[in-house]
Each structure stands twice: as C-alpha cells, then as structure tokens.
C-alpha cells in the first residue's frame, strides 16, 4: 500500500507536484496517467525518497521509504531514466543490489532468467538496446521479491512482444496480491492494463477511480445507426430528446444521449427498418484529452500557423 498525503514539490517558481493525495491499494494495477510534464516521475521519486518533498509526505506500508530496512524487499522500482553503469555487466549490477539487501546470489540468476537476459548476463550494459535496458530494470525491481512495484513508463522502448510481456507480468503480479503502481502518458495502454486510474495534470489530481467509472464519467455514449428511413428516424429521435448528428455520406447516423436497446425499441414501435445498430465504445483517449486539456505542460496552445499571423514571428 502506497499513501501520498498532501504532497508538494517545487523547483524554484515551478510547482511540479501540487498538493497531491491518493492511495494505491494492493491486489490491482493502478495506472498513473498524465501528459508529459504532469509530475508523474517526480511523484514517484518523492515516494521513493530520491527527492525531498517541499511539503507533505509519502508512505510505503505506513513508513517513509527512507525508514525501510532492506527497501528492495518491500518495493521494486523501475525509473524512467536508465540507472545502471554502462561498464558493468548485468549480472554484477544486480549482484551489488542483491548484496545490499542480503538477497542470495542465486536470486540474481533467477530474475535474469525471468526477464530473458540470461544469455547476456555477463555483457556490459552499455551495449544493451532500450528494450534490454528496460528488462534489466524490471529484473532489478523484482530482485527482492517485493510486494509493491512502482514502474515509470515500463513499456517505453519495448517492441510489441515486450509490451505484451509487461502487461502479462503486471497482471500476474497484481493477481498475486501485490501493489502495482505504473505510470504512462498513453491512455490506451492504461485502458488494457490498469484496474484503477489516478490521473494528474500540472501536478494536481484530476481523477482517482476505477477504469470503468472513468470511461462512464468522462465520455458520452454514442450509438451508430444505419437506416433507410433516416428522416423519419431523425424526427422520432428528436421527440425523445436524443441528438442525431454526423450524417455520413454512407447514411450512418450517430445518436448520443441514448442507448442501443432504447433505439431498438423506438424503431420497433415506429416500424422503422434498421440495417445497423452498434454501440460506440467511447474513446478513452478522447476522455483523457478532455480531462487533461488545460493541464499539459506545453499543450493546448493551438499550433501557430506557418507564416505567423499572430504577430510573434
């Protein structure tokens, strides 16, 4: 269990983390979502005791990280930037970490095998690809068999096989009752991985809820309807107060403010022929963009037109 209480981190005049409070519960994958520069990495570093908060506090199982004995046995962390010396072999990198925790040497071989790096264990890490580096980071995180995992953008730089592998790994670890806290700036990645979402923008908490609720709350439901009696359908729908928009060239209609069963019932009542009736799953990406629109670091200034008519060029 990770608890963050009224956490603030300022760098000069910039507030990277702004009175953030949340809890990360065990047994599920909690996605930590926000645009680049929203303060995700900073929050994770504050939880891990690498940076000092300006005010507020963060606890791992009720204790500050710096008070944990053998912390790698409580918490495994993968940080965004690579944290290895390129001249040292993967094995020796993990070995010294294991030695600080009193973790036996055979566990090093075990985690190397687990992440599929056994064949390159003796190679210096400066020759590793981004994906291999990520795998080594995961191996380091799993070294102490921790109950809590904190992973900053773990799928960055991974090929599709690697992305799938991470997803399966996280799900298996969560099913095992562990606390998984994983950050991403990609909504769609979180939608298929996470059970719970914590969304931040400009260091402030924007949402803290299950993924399903997030979708329901932040997106309109829409239904695609295809009918030869488009005009009759439009007027019938208007009577019910539903919005019918987006008449496409092929005659498809988008109905919002209603559900597929309601539309089906209406059509049966009026004797209208329907060729298609498809609920549109609201785009999570849209919901996320909507939520964080005003909170990105650079976002939301419209891109200046080339040739500059705005007087700045």
């Amino acid at each position, binding site marked *: 269990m990770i608890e963050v209480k009224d956490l603030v981190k300022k760098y000069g005049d910039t507030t990277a983390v702004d009175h953030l409070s949340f809890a990360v519960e065990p047994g599920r994958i909690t996605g930590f979502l926000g645009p680049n520069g929203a303060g995700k990495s900073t929050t994770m*570093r504050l939880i*891990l*005791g*690498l*940076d*000092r908060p300006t005010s507020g506090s963060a606890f791992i199982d009720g204790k500050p*990280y*710096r008070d*944990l*004995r*053998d*912390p*790698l*046995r*409580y*918490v495994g*962390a993968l*940080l965004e*930037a*690579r*944290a*290895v*010396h*390129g*001249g*040292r*072999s993967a094995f*020796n*990198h993990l*070995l*010294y*970490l294991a*030695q*600080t*925790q*009193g*973790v*036996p040497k*055979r*566990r090093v071989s*075990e*985690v190397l*095998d*687990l992440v*599929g*790096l056994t*064949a390159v264990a003796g190679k210096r890490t400066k020759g590793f690809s981004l994906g*291999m580096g990520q*795998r080594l980071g995961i191996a*380091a995180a799993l070294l*102490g*068999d921790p109950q809590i995992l904190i992973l900053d953008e773990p799928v960055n730089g991974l090929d599709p*096989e*690697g992305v799938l*592998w991470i997803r*399966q*790994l996280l799900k*298996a*670890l969560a099913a*095992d009752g562990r606390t998984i806290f994983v950050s991403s700036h990609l909504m769609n990645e979180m939608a298929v991985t996470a059970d719970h979402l914590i969304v931040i923008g400009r260091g402030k908490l924007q949402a803290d809820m299950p993924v399903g609720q997030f979708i329901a709350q932040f997106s309109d439901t829409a239904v695609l309807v295809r009918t030869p009696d488009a005009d009759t359908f439009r007027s019938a729908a208007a009577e019910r107060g539903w919005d019918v928009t987006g008449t496409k060239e092929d005659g498809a209609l988008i109905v919002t403010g209603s559900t597929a069963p309601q539309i089906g019932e209406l059509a049966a009542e009026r004797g209208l022929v329907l060729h298609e009736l498809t609920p549109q799953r609201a785009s999570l990406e849209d919901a996320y963009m909507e939520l964080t629109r005003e909170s990105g670091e650079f976002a939301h200034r419209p891109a200046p037109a080339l040739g500059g008519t705005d007087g700045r060029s």
Partner: protein
Amino acid sequence: MAARDSVLTPAAVDAAGTGHAHFGRLLLAEWTKIRSVRSTYWSLIALVIAFLFFSWLFPYLTVANWKQATPEQQANLIEDPIGSIMSSGLFVGQLAVAVLGVMVTASEYGTGMIRSTLLASPHRVRMLAAKSLVFTLLIGAIGEVIAFAGFYIGRLTFKSLLTVNLDSSNVRQVFGVGLYLGMLGLFALVIGALLRHVAGAITGIVALLLVISNLIQLIPGRVGKYLYTYEPTNAGFAIIGKRLPDNFLISSWEGYGVFAAWTALLWALAAYLLVRRDA
C-alpha cells in the same frame, strides 16, 4: 531473449529482519561495484606501472650521472635516498588515484546509477561511509605494496653507489606512500561526491595537484607560506619527505594531519549535501 510464460518464481529471499541494513552488506556491495568496472583496473595498472618505473628510473639516472653531479646534489642524495626513489613515481601515480577516486562517486551521477544505489540504501550517509572505507583501504593497501616494491627496486639500482636501509629515520617515508595515496583517494572520492560531475571533478583535482599546489608558493610573504603549507595535497605529500622545503611551516605528521582534517571536513560536507540534495 524470449520471455517466459510464467512470471512468478518461488522467491529465493529470506525474511527481512529489523533495524538498518548491516554495514557489512554495504561494504560487500561497494566492493562488488569497484571490482566490476574496467576503469578500476586501468587506473590501478597505471598507478603500479608509473610508480615502479620511476622507482627504477630516478636511481638509475642518478647512478649513471654520479660523476657529473655537484657535491651539493651528491650530499642531498646521500641524506635522502628514499625521497629520490619515491617522489617522482608518487607525483605521477597520484593522478591515477585521483581520477579513480573521482570516478567512484561522480560516475554514479553521470550514469544515473546513483538512483539504483540510493533505492537500495536510502540511508545515504551509511552508503557514503561504506564506499569511502572500501576505496580508502583498497588504495592504501595497494599503496603500501608498491611502496615496498619500489623501495627494493630503488635499493637494488643504487647498490653500486650506496646502501639504502630501512630504519627508524626513513620508514615513515616508505609507509607514507600508502598513507598518502589512501587519503588522496578518499579526498578525490569526496570531491566527486560534491561536484557530481566526472570531468569537472577530475579537472579540479588535477589542477589542484599539478598547478595550484605549486603556484601558491609564489604569493609573497607569510601568506604564501601558509597557503603553500596548508594546501591539502602539499600538506599530505610531506609524509614522504625527509627534509621539508623551507617554506613548509609544519612537520611531516602535522602535514598529514592537515590533509586528513581537510578530507574529514569535506567528507562531512559531502554527507550533508548527499542527504539534502535530490538524487
């Protein structure tokens, strides 16, 4: 590189105890770090070769040119043969120790490995203490070994000219090589921890050793003498000197004490900043 299907392995991890991590574990881990990078081997090989080569070269040249030497030069040599065996090798070899000392700390920041290190040992001062102890002892031990090896090489080379024996008047000079190098290694390690930048810290310490330590004696009067004497590496180098320069105001052991005091002061500052600063 194929990922395995099963992601869970039986944990080969013993139950965690209470209190802070054993200091012994941190020592072992720091030892693993030092011995698992090539820069350690290259620096130490450079130290050993440079020191032993100069331990032979200077006596060899002295013997070869003995007849052309002035009576004053001859008298200096007879008074302090160990100084002439050791000082050039030490002057060159110390650069390898300084570079390695800086790398031991500063390269952790350059590579980002400091984050792995601090996640594993969040009690940062203990980590710095373990690193300092392991590195100082390693360099000190190697320093003593090459000091005695260099002494015997020099003694053999001088044999046709004079007999050099170890006695109570000069044994400090030989032991001083390991003492000086160990302290210099720690001093460089601390500079690396303070500046957190390999190139900057190496530039700083090499400038101190080769340039600043000599230039400050050009400052006239008593101020110049004080600065020259209390500059940390000059003060430390006095441990291998027999007859110290006229502008050096204190004894050999006092000089070494000054070097140790500088190192301790900067170590305390580095420890304080390590705890205060974001990693």
